């Protein structure tokens, strides 16, 4: 019975505890910093320059291609790291195998470049 009491008290405190700062924040905002909107205050920040045009620009799906190519080469780097750390103990054939791996990925990059994927449209 006493363990349930303990739990109930704990639950109550757990609920109340986060509410206190929220209540304090609400009270402060109400009493000490009521909202006073103004033109300059609401405008979007663009590194000090006057913003021109609407803020809602269509997101270019072309971005995903850069993300994809980045991901591929990032994973390549991940594979390169253990190879690099064990490099001195590995035979020549391992070096050849990894060169093949890197050349395959390099050809992928060359293909992407030649196809004009890397150029921003």
């Amino acid at each position, binding site marked *: 019975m006493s363990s349930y009491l303990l739990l109930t008290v704990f639950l109550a405190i757990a609920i109340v505890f986060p509410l206190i700062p929220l209540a304090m924040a609400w009270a402060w905002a109400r009493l000490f910093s009521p909202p006073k909107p103004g033109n300059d205050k609401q405008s979007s920040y663009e590194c000090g320059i006057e913003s021109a045009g609407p803020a809602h620009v269509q997101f270019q799906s072309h971005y995903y291609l850069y993300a994809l190519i980045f991901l591929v080469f990032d994973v390549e780097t991940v594979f390169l790291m253990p190879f690099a750390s064990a490099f001195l103990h590995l035979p020549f*054939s391992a070096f050849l195998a990894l060169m093949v791996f890197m050349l*395959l990925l390099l*050809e992928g990059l060359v*293909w992407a470049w030649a196809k004009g994927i890397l150029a921003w449209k």
Partner: protein
Amino acid sequence: MTSLVHSLMPEAILVVAALLVLGLGVSWPGARTPITATALIGGFAAAAAILLFPLDANLLDGMVVLNPLARIFKLVILGLGLAAAVFASESFPKNHFAESLALILFSTVGMMLLAGTEDLLMIFLALELTSIPLYALAAFDKESRSSAEAGMKYFLIGSVSAAFLLYGLSLIYGVAGSTSLRAISQLSGPPDPLLIAGIVLAVAGFAFKVAAVPFQLWAPDVYEGAPTAAAALIASGSKVAGVFILAKLLTSGLGQWAGAAGWGEFQAGWAPVLALMAAASIVLGNVTALVQSNVKRLLAYSAIAHGGYLLLGLCSASADGLTAVLFYVVIYALTTAGAFGVVAVVEKQRGGARLDDFDGLAKSSPVLALCLLVFFISLAGIPPLAGFIGKFYLFTSALANGQHLWLVVVAVAMNAVSLYYYLIVLKHAFVLPAPDDIRPADAPASQALVAALALAVLVLGLAPNLLLVPLMKPDAGKGARSMPCCARGMIDPPPHLATKRFSAGAPGAGY
């Protein structure tokens, strides 16, 4: 190391060919013929590597396994990939043509790797290498909304199934402690619940590949929406590879937990699961195909039904059943590839693949119509074509232990039903008159290839031993056992099945 390179030489040649195709595509985009020629030369070189330098190997504890059976399947897959490339060269959209050929070649590499492995990790890797280019190929026609839909559906459902498969394989690995099928087959003791969960999940993942109910929902939309040459590769190549590796996994690795699927004699295991999926696929595939009006969709439902027949052969968990399944999957792949080839040419000539677009095909392209007749009659299982021999062998081996009479009855009945929808297509081709304005079909290579495939189906129907005998060659390593056993590691039938005789109705009937 060198033996690894030698063992994977055919795949390496194909990869090099694919990279060359990509390079050519970037430098001379409009030149379809040199690009196709490069792909074909690469393919023939890979085939020559398989045929001229036969190698038996078992590297890295089952990661790369080469034996006569694997070589046969690699050759078949290579042939199917090249067939898809030829069909694509004459029917695919003109933009990014080299990329489509490269994707076909990469997918073929994945399928060939699937045919030559006995390790869980490699299975998953090769399966993904097969599937991802196919997802892209399904969506390749950028001017067609149904192609985009097909690619999206294939990708989403395929990825989820791959996730299921991976989870299942990892559970199996967790129980077995090793990823090689050999180690898994040597587990002893009662099956762990985790192992059972793993088997079920793995079977679910593979059932997607084979398009078996209830994992078949992708097939009609993908087969209909994808460009026809891509659908040809999906229908033939990935099915061959998927069935082969499923058969190998279940019989080599998980053979002890087969269970039994006889009526009233169910024993827990993967065989009852396969039996139920087979029955559902056969019924659903055939019945739904009856009402289709688009030939590609009809072929998709027929593929679902044939997935059911293949699973039926696997249920019996015997060496005979295994041979029958492997024989039939090759026959089916050749037939389907040819059927899709015909559809590709008709689509190019008439602008669509609906039933009405086949009207009067016998008048406008008699050779093509005759090939269509051969393929569809083979799919319906009518002699003297290979499809009949294959189905007969499947049903006979399923009934050999006297266990699956209920399933064979369902299969034979639905097979008779299937003739209806095949005849409907043939009616449009042979009986109905042709429309007046028809362009001549400008696809000579596809037509020649389709004729060659039809000839192969006919020859294999008259002389099935050409394919059966290589599939049944006893493995020298197994000693003097004369039972047909296909490849290394294929099991003996479980003892309780090996000596059982057919005794319907009269238990203990004397002989």
